[in-house]
């Protein structure tokens, strides 16, 4: 806290817009992301910390099918006290009638002990495609650094109702339910918990992805100030002096830009910023297997900023939408490992953006005609 106060005093003394624009506001937006992610984005409550576990010799889980009598077991060392939940990932399952469901036994014990600490039965109907089933028990107060073994046994698994374990990491997640009075005991315990909670968040890729929605204000802000920044412009103007580059950009400029004003600025920015967004889109389609609303909104938002700041024509939105549709068709036909849902969603939003541009343009033309007539 002391250091924080010193830092803020220093900033205040600077009385410099640069500091507010480039340091304070970005920190504020990142904090906002962290705050909302910790409170709203986590799939467990705020007082829960979680640790992910991956496939290993001790934890052989990938794509295993649980038929009657078969047992799968996992071994892990608890990172914290208050171990209360083990969540295991299952892959897509077939829905069967309630009476035909499999029954699973979940057991947990400390390594070296012969007796089980906890044992209970669960129905296979709890499992959903690519989701974790939580097996909860009374939190173990002094679990930290102790090694535990858990087992899952199928009682009625057959060809139709058997569950299949997940095929990607993390294969299971352990969760630690901290009492509130322990977290809020003193400032240090609060800070410690926040740090651990942040690590929990950052160590889980799915959680980070789902929390990207809260990072959008930061991304939009940085994009906004970057596009008008004189230092960036200085670099781009230098680039623009290159004759070959200039000729090439001017050829396509008529198709891309709505007006000729501030040509250097727009062309130079466009040649950097547009490919940047396109690359982000390609990354999203190629490497993020699911369609994530936050990323889709983010990319569409970045595109809207580009249109506004660079005065882009709707043609570019439509061309990009068309290319994404073609990519999707080819991906379906060629069985490419691309996320067709993501590319088609992006394509749709680009079409929406394009038509809004067109309508606004038509409206302004109509207004101009009216005004000149009157």
């Amino acid at each position: 806290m002391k250091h924080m106060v010193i830092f803020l005093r220093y900033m205040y003394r600077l009385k410099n817009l640069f500091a507010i624009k480039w340091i304070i506001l970005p920190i504020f937006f990142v904090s906002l992301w962290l705050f909302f992610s910790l409170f709203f984005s986590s799939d467990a409550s705020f007082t829960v910390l979680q640790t992910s576990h991956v496939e290993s010799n001790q934890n052989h889980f990938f794509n295993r099918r649980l038929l009657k009598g078969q047992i799968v077991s996992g071994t892990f060392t608890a990172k914290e006290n208050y171990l209360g939940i083990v969540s295991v990932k299952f892959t897509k399952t077939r829905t069967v009638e309630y009476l035909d469901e499999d029954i699973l036994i979940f057991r947990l014990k400390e390594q070296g002990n012969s007796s089980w600490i906890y044992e209970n039965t669960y129905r296979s109907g709890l499992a959903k495609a690519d989701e974790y089933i939580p097996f909860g028990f009374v939190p173990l107060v002094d679990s930290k650094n102790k090694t535990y073994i858990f087992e899952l046994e199928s009682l009625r698994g057959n060809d139709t109702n058997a569950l299949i374990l997940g095929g990607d990491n993390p294969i299971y997640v352990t969760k630690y339910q901290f009492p509130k009075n322990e977290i809020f005991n003193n400032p240090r315990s609060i800070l410690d918990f926040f740090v651990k909670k942040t690590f929990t968040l950052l160590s889980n890729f799915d959680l980070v992805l789902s929390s990207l929605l809260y990072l959008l204000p930061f991304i939009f802000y940085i994009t906004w100030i970057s596009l008008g920044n004189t230092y960036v412009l200085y670099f781009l103007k230098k680039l623009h002096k290159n004759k070959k580059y200039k000729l090439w950009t001017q050829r396509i400029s008529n198709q891309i830009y709505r007006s000729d004003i501030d040509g250097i600025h727009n062309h130079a920015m466009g040649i950097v910023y547009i490919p940047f967004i396109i690359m982000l889109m390609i990354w999203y389609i190629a490497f993020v297997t699911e369609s994530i609303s936050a990323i889709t909104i983010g990319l569409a938002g970045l595109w809207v900023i580009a249109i506004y700041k660079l005065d882009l024509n709707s043609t570019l939105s439509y061309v990009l939408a068309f290319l994404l549709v073609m990519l999707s068709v080819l991906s379906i036909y060629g069985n490419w490992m691309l996320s067709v849902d993501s590319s088609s969603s992006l394509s749709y939003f680009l079409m929406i953006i394009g038509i809004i541009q067109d309508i606004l343009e038509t409206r302004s033309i109509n207004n101009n005609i009216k005004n000149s007539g009157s």
Partner: protein
Amino acid sequence: MNKKVLRISFFALNVLIIGLFFYLPYYLFDGRLFLGGDDTRLYYAYPSELLKYLASYSWITISSLPSNIPNFHAIPFLLVSVLLDTIFQSKTYLFNFFFSLPFVLGFIYFQKCIRELLGKEYILSLATSLIYVLSPITIVSHFSHFLTPVWLVALLPIIAYHYVRYIRYGTRRDIIFAVLWSIFLSMAYFAIVWLLGAIIPLVCGAMFLIIVGINPFKKIVKRTIVFVSYIFSSQLFWLVPFFMSMTYKGETDLGGKVISKTLSDSFSPTVLSTATGNIIYPLLTFYHKQIAVDYNWLIKDVFISYWDHISPLSMIYAIVLFLGIITYRQTIKGEMKVLFLFVLSAFLFALYFFTVNIGFLRSLFLLFGHIPGFSIFRNFTDKFSLGYIFIYSVLLSFCLHIIKKSIPKLFAPTIFLVIVITLINFLPVKQVINSPVWTTKHIYQTVNLPTEYFEFAEKIQSIVPNTSNVFSLPQNIASYAVIVESNRNNAYIGTSPFKFFTGINDLSGSMSYPEEISNSIRESIVTRNYEKLLTTLHQINVGYVLITNNIPDEITHSYLFDIHYLKFQNNELLDSITESETLRSANGTYVLYTMKKPMAVFLPPENIEFRKISPVKYEVKINNIKESQELLLKETYHPGWRVYLSEKQKSTVTRHDLLDLKYFFKPSFFDLSHKRSISYGNTWTIDTNTVLHDSTISSYEKNADGTVNIYLTLFFFPQLYFYIGIISTVLIVSILSLYIQL
């Protein structure tokens, strides 16, 4: 000269295509009838029977206990069908003609509509009208089921054409044609949800333009209101009873169903489980493949074996679309540009509603589920499919028109490719339409109903009173009948047609009853509590049991039957609830038994005499009442049933339905005592004092022992709204005709 040759060629091409459309059902069904399903499709082969027993009454009982869903919308269509039936003298010709008609009308009028919008674009309009009627979306969602919404394929372009002409020229002729077509195809308007599926994207598109600053409708509001008013008025004959039926709070009221909690609760789960596709397949004019895969629909096999291999060819539609969008600014101006933006906006809404699974827009669609009544769109891929393909085809017409102007060299090859690829996509039509029944491999729904069935039905009419219900075995999971041809591979599988051929209602499956009664019957059968079963069946007015003996194992093991439940529907059950065999068909396929407990539609039977005049009217005489007596009518409870005092019974009763309008002005009696029976039915407490004091007519006679005989009429009041609707329609159409003449 060249123009003349082109016109003749174009006309010849149209004639050829229309000829092929008329030939199509002969190719698809090999001379059989494509009957069955929820709508039965019997409209197109047996119109007289349907007109007689179904269409004229709002209180319908088709293989179920009565439900208050009016059927008047089918009357004009059935009247025309009856006329054609007498001309054709062949059920096959008649059915096949009606199967081809939506294709033909849709094809012709879509072209006319496009030419009205874009000028003399003959070949272009032909290409896009082929997309409209032959695209896999149209075939899968409409022609493969051939339910009543299929008539919207014809009606949408017809109305659009006359609307555009009326807006443009203000000719009254277009109103009268639109009204006449609307009356003939009023059946299509009854598919109101599908109609809304087309209207909602168009309205959203218009609102979108208005919100962002362009109002394309300022100049056309007045004419639009006039046009829509006439169309609306032409439908009053069924709209009046339809809307009035929603105001009743009976056991099966339609309004209650639309906003019922059960329906709204099922909205989110249905949407979440079916919103799994994306916009790519619709852009290529294919139905969503993912839903077919998820639910193991038979078209999944068509995708795997055919459409998936040729899907890249369909990129031509996306290319045309985007070329049009990218180049339109250089080509079209003014009102045409605004019209294009309107169609494009409507298209984007239609694409969204037909797909839903577009990022966060899926969550937005789930929020719409909170709007009362929006739950009817839970099967959005079905409800919005026609609207989508209609708007998409119109948009493609615009885009081709733009390409023709902006890149003329590209136009001819593009049109050629569009036509060829549309036809290539259409090739597996037989596999899509005439596919085996779901969960079977060798059972087809094309059938010629066996003579044995008709002969049996005819005999039944003389044995079973029309006030009795028949309990069919084996019971299925719907309210279907299974009527199998002798080859055992072709069968009628759909809502039981027993009522149409006999006038008597049968109860054939779990959906024939309200849930409570259905559960009670099932429980009694499974627990072998036959006494309880007899009581339940007696309460719902069952007097006979019908056994069908030739249902193939492949059908009993299909989704249509609960195999566990089927085990208990055996001879032990039959022996326990029936008294004797009453009638056996020629080959023993159908057997009718009399129930053990005698049946009576009115209780108590001892002192009640009655005559069923029509499904909505009973004449009743209660003998020897002392002071008061309870009267029970074993029809599903509905507040619309009313008791009137009537004159002493005449010896003969003739039916004059329109004269029933007098009940509007007659006072009804015992309304306060009308209530739902604890078991099933409507009860009134008939009080002699009321009759003696209030009766202005001679509706009673005193007996020597001081008791009274009372004459009553039980009438289903909502029927009157149909007569009012008919009068309204006739009046308005007559006024319109006069208006046109002037």
